[in-house]
């Protein structure tokens, strides 16, 4: 056997290990980054264009744009300058938002508790489905339903409240006009925000540490004492954040509110009276026949609404994220 000595194969040159991404990865990351940042760009553009178009109104009105009650076009023949202020509408928006919270949050939190701790197993899935379906219903449907179905009932409830609690100033009635009141708008909005408040509350309730729940039961707590002692302290932030998210939705709701609320450029404390305000509905209301200066004022109003809802959402998400991270 002849031994042929083959030359050893040349060892491959050691591969260069590098952390610099390949060209394809550079392109990939650039594209993804561009896509990812485009949401920020869109938000920035929304703010920019609304301010840009509403700038003249802001300059002409100054702070009184936020505090003024009047929304009047210029009337040259009478020598009246235009006067635009969203004060009354902002106030009205806050009123219906708060009413929505007062009606909606207890029911939403109760439902979240029901789903987390009370409901029998077989009922949980259908109930969650019901909440999801509610969240999927378009706002114009709530408007139609609120106007034709809920309103007759709600007027009757309002009359009862006025009859028995009329001595409290907010339930007073200067005129016999119960329809399309902030009370009714608040009811419709409450139904619209229940899904989001319920699902956020349920999420944080689900993160309550099981050992503490069991510890509470082991100490002889009833279900309610357990919820009071463990679930509420733990999930308080989430409930508050969820309620604020709901408030943000309520403040920005347009179509449903427009249908069931009578807009009035006035600040009134009587919630049962057919006179309320909503910035978003006002924009739709005035948009149709707006001339150029009024359109600028509407853009400015839109910017105010944008800032308010963005701020509410920021705070809400901050609180929720903080609560959820605790778990």
């Amino acid at each position, binding site marked *: 056997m002849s031994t042929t000595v083959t030359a050893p194969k040349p060892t491959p040159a050691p591969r260069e290990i590098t952390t610099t991404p390949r060209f394809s990865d550079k392109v990939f990351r650039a594209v993804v980054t561009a896509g990812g940042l485009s*949401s920020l760009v869109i938000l920035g553009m929304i703010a920019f264009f609304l301010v840009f178009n509403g700038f003249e109104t802001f300059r002409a009105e100054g702070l009184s744009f936020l505090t003024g009650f009047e929304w009047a076009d210029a009337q040259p023949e009478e020598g009246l300058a235009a006067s635009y202020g969203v004060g009354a509408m902002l106030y009205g928006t806050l009123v219906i938002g708060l009413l929505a919270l007062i009606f909606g949050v207890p029911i939403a939190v109760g439902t979240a508790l029901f789903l987390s701790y009370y409901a029998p197993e077989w009922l949980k899935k259908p109930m969650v489905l019901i909440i999801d379906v509610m969240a999927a219903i378009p706002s114009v449907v709530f408007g139609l339903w609120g106007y034709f179905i809920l309103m007759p009932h709600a007027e009757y409830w309002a009359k009862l409240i006025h009859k028995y609690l009329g001595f409290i100033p907010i339930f007073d009635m200067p005129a016999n006009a119960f329809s399309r009141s902030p009370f009714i708008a608040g009811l419709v909005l409450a139904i619209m925000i229940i899904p989001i408040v319920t699902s956020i509350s349920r999420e944080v309730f689900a993160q309550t540490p099981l050992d503490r729940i069991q510890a509470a039961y082991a100490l002889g707590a009833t279900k309610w004492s357990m919820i009071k002692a463990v679930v509420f302290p733990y999930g308080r932030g989430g409930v508050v954040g969820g309620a604020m998210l709901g408030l943000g939705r309520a403040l920005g709701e347009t179509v449903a509110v427009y249908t069931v609320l009578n807009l009035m450029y006035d600040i009134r404390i009587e919630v049962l009276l057919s006179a309320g305000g909503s910035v978003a509905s006002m924009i739709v209301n005035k948009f149709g026949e707006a001339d150029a200066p009024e359109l600028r004022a509407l853009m400015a109003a839109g910017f105010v609404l944008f800032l308010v809802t963005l701020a509410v959402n920021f705070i809400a998400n901050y609180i929720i994220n903080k609560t959820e991270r605790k778990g």
Partner: protein
Amino acid sequence: MSTLSLSAKPQRPWQPTFKSLIPDILGALFTAFATLAIVGISPLKGKLGFVIVLILMAVITTSVISWIRKDRKAALNSTSTVLVYVAAAFVIVPLASILWEIFTKGATGVSLNIFSNDMSATASDSPLTEGGLLHAIVGTVYLVLIASVVSTPIGILTALYIVEVKGKFAGIVRFFVQAMSGIPSIVAGLFIYAVWMIGLGNSYNAGAGAAALAILMIPTVARTSEEVLKLIPNDLREAGLAMGATQWRTVAMIIIPAAKSGLVTAVILGIARVAGETAPLLLTIGGADGLNLNPFSGNNSALPYYVWKNLGLGSEIAVQRAWLGVFVLIVVVFIFFTLARVLGAAKGSRK
């Protein structure tokens, strides 16, 4: 020889026996009779009075029974239990009412001609057998299609940026996208009006409406996609990289295929979210009574717009048309909603 037959019956000492249930049954009966009696005698009338008395009586009876049988804490527990059940019932009532009304008021007007006619040659108060929803259905299809085409890449890229690339601004982007989902729809409409009509000098068309809807759709798509991508196990990413693939190849050939149905669900959820939006359309599509097949020129209509318009007209027939429009709209939304759930459920088991 006897076989040992020791089959111990499972005992459940914690389960209520019939005897322990007697007070509860008596309490429920008492509640029912007392409610009927009070509503019958007192001036309280109607469903509202009945419901209020029923809730009050239920709270009082269960609390008193618990107090007598146990103590104050048990009474408090019973009260809260009743109230929690009442809250859950209150959620079902409005939804049931909404669906019932839509079905009874809207479904009656459904006939074949609403899918083949538009309103260009029909007065709003001529009977429902004339005219139809064709223009609105076509408009909604255009709006949804264009909005999806625009928002799907942006939404998914945003999710990829947050989960895969984990860029410098990932936290900020995530936070802003969360906040963006709370933007009022009317603001999106105003923005598009400012850019498209005032800025670029175009007139109303479906494309503008779709752009406004896309803004509202992006956060939904991005956040749902983010959840989906987070569910992909890290092993898959590491396997891809260990095989020498670049990040681009890993994402394109492993992550995206693995997450495909979830991403589709995200888009469909986004569609369900925007298909019924009305407010931005009022400022952007202009509204039309006739069929307009060109989405980028001329006024167009949409289902929510059709409902809105007929609601504003206010005549009896117009309102019937509005209910009909709502019925069709709800059917469309629920189809997408169901699709999203079915597709989501197929992958959901991995969670």
